């Protein structure tokens, strides 16, 4: 049988870490909670909500005290119609894995049934709302996790959220000669094929009306 992390191990670890974060940052108003997926087979994860100016403190604590060694994904989102305090949002996904260097000619084969609570792998989702405006920015964590480097480059390139203090920021997916200020995932840019908006904006295709026009399911 394959090895796995049990629901109980995971729930205990998630609530322990969430409580530790809430305790450490209680005066800063940072909220950490253990969140369950809709599918109850999937394991819980820890969701942290913080302000842009608190992000580096949280990141340093997670990396040095929380054992979080891996920045897996950075997602920027543009909310042009959102409230003034959430015109943009950055969601950072982090991973805690029991990975250490091994000696030559040896290996570590983890047996999850023997894990202590602090060794259980855990996913983190850090939600950072940014105030509406033309120049959204949050501090970089490039120096804490090397893996955040290109994730942040990509977020700036596609969404236009700036990372203060990021060294060597440049376009990674768009051409280097893209116009300054052009970030395609901002919502004011619409997909079109020459002038045929319908062709791509209408999921039913070619200007036909959707079959459920006027009905709300």
């Amino acid at each position: 049988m394959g090895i796995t992390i049990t629901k109980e191990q995971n729930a205990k670890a998630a609530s322990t870490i969430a409580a530790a974060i809430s305790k450490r940052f209680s005066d800063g108003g940072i909220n950490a909670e253990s969140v369950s997926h809709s599918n109850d087979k999937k394991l819980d994860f820890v969701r942290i909500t913080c302000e842009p100016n608190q992000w580096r403190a949280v990141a340093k604590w997670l990396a040095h005290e929380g054992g979080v060694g891996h920045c897996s994904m950075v997602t920027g989102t543009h909310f042009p119609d959102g409230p003034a305090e959430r015109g943009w949002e950055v969601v950072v996904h982090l991973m805690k894995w029991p990975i250490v260097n091994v000696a030559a000619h040896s290996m570590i084969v983890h047996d999850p049934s023997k894990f202590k609570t602090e060794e259980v792998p855990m996913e983190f989702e850090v939600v950072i709302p940014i105030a509406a405006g033309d120049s959204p920015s949050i501090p970089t964590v490039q120096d804490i996790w090397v893996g955040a480097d290109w994730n942040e480059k990509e977020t700036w390139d596609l969404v236009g959220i700036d990372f203060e203090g990021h060294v060597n920021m440049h376009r990674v997916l768009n051409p280097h000669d893209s116009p300054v200020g052009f970030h395609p995932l901002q919502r004011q840019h619409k997909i079109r094929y020459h002038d045929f908006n319908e062709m791509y904006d209408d999921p039913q295709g070619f200007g036909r009306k959707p079959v459920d026009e006027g009905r709300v399911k």
Partner: protein
Amino acid sequence: MAEMWITMGPQHPMTHGLWTMRVKVDGETITDTEAELGYIHRGVEKICESRDFTQITPYCDRLCYVSAMTWAHSYVMAAEDLLEAEVPERAEYIRLMAAEIQRLASHLMWLGAFGPDIGNLTLMTWCLRDREMFLDLLQELGGSRMHYNFPRVGGVKRDIPIGWADRMRAKVKLFEHRIDEYEMLLDESTIWLVRLQGVGYATAEDQLNAGVTGPNIRAAGVNTDARWTNPYSVYDQVDWEPAVEKPTSVKGADCYDRYRVRMEEMRQSCRMLLDAIEKIPGGSNTHYQPGDEMILTKAPTRAPEGATGFSTYECTRGVSQFYLKGGGDSRGKNPYRMSIRSPIFITIPYVAKSMIGYKIADIPAIMGSFDPCIGESDR
């Protein structure tokens, strides 16, 4: 000697796709590198904001042209999380088998392309011969040889055909012997050993910090695998253990270790397939009609604003992740934002930097051993 910059790519055989590596050399020694991606950026994340959740699956197939099934599977898991859909047990088993067959096909494509990098052209013909067997199996499921559009939100498109189980068993058992043949060919080849051993060292902690995942990190001696650390599907019910390799040096895994771990991973996939086909609920020689509740449940089509869906998935090259936000256009039928984590997008800059100190002739061996795929990294 004066240092100079050499541009390798975008059409260099080492790149395994379209990207550029600029290499600064001092004589034969690499002193600095810069990676440049984005040649085949198609804006999948933007396109998907105007597609409904079913229409997105074919785009995710096209993210990686050698591992379409795993990417579509990863996406539908995130969509199921967002839309709160349930998946029948039989469909989970079919998805698991489809993903593992795809892993075999993808690793064979990697080995086949890696051979000529090292100077062993025979390997390419052998690997493509065996890959055909697995593409045939996937074609029976999805109807196509490359982009299957097979997983659905809430299940799978079609059940396994009558007789598929026997064909699969026969092919997997044959392939288990073929893995031994490959090892006989390669592990005693002086060229193979000389070019792979002692180059491209990467330690586990460095790779973790730099965002490298999957077989590359398991080659460095740790059995971390998202199939058990972030369990999904029915991997806890079938017989397998994560492939892991003992690195030959304190400096971490070299190219040879990364080759060994993928060979072991193919063996584990075979083991999983043979076990899953015995345990599949409803029997392996039964065929349920498309849409039957054994293989597909009806899933909601709209997600409200504020809802999020997330999946972590052990893809063939590392951990892929999808993050979806609900409440997009067409009254919630489209995602507001779809974000993709590509393992190779993060790996390429790390590998480029880890080459510093080695010789120019080592570049194809180091790059190839990390299994780059540009389709997924450029998106």
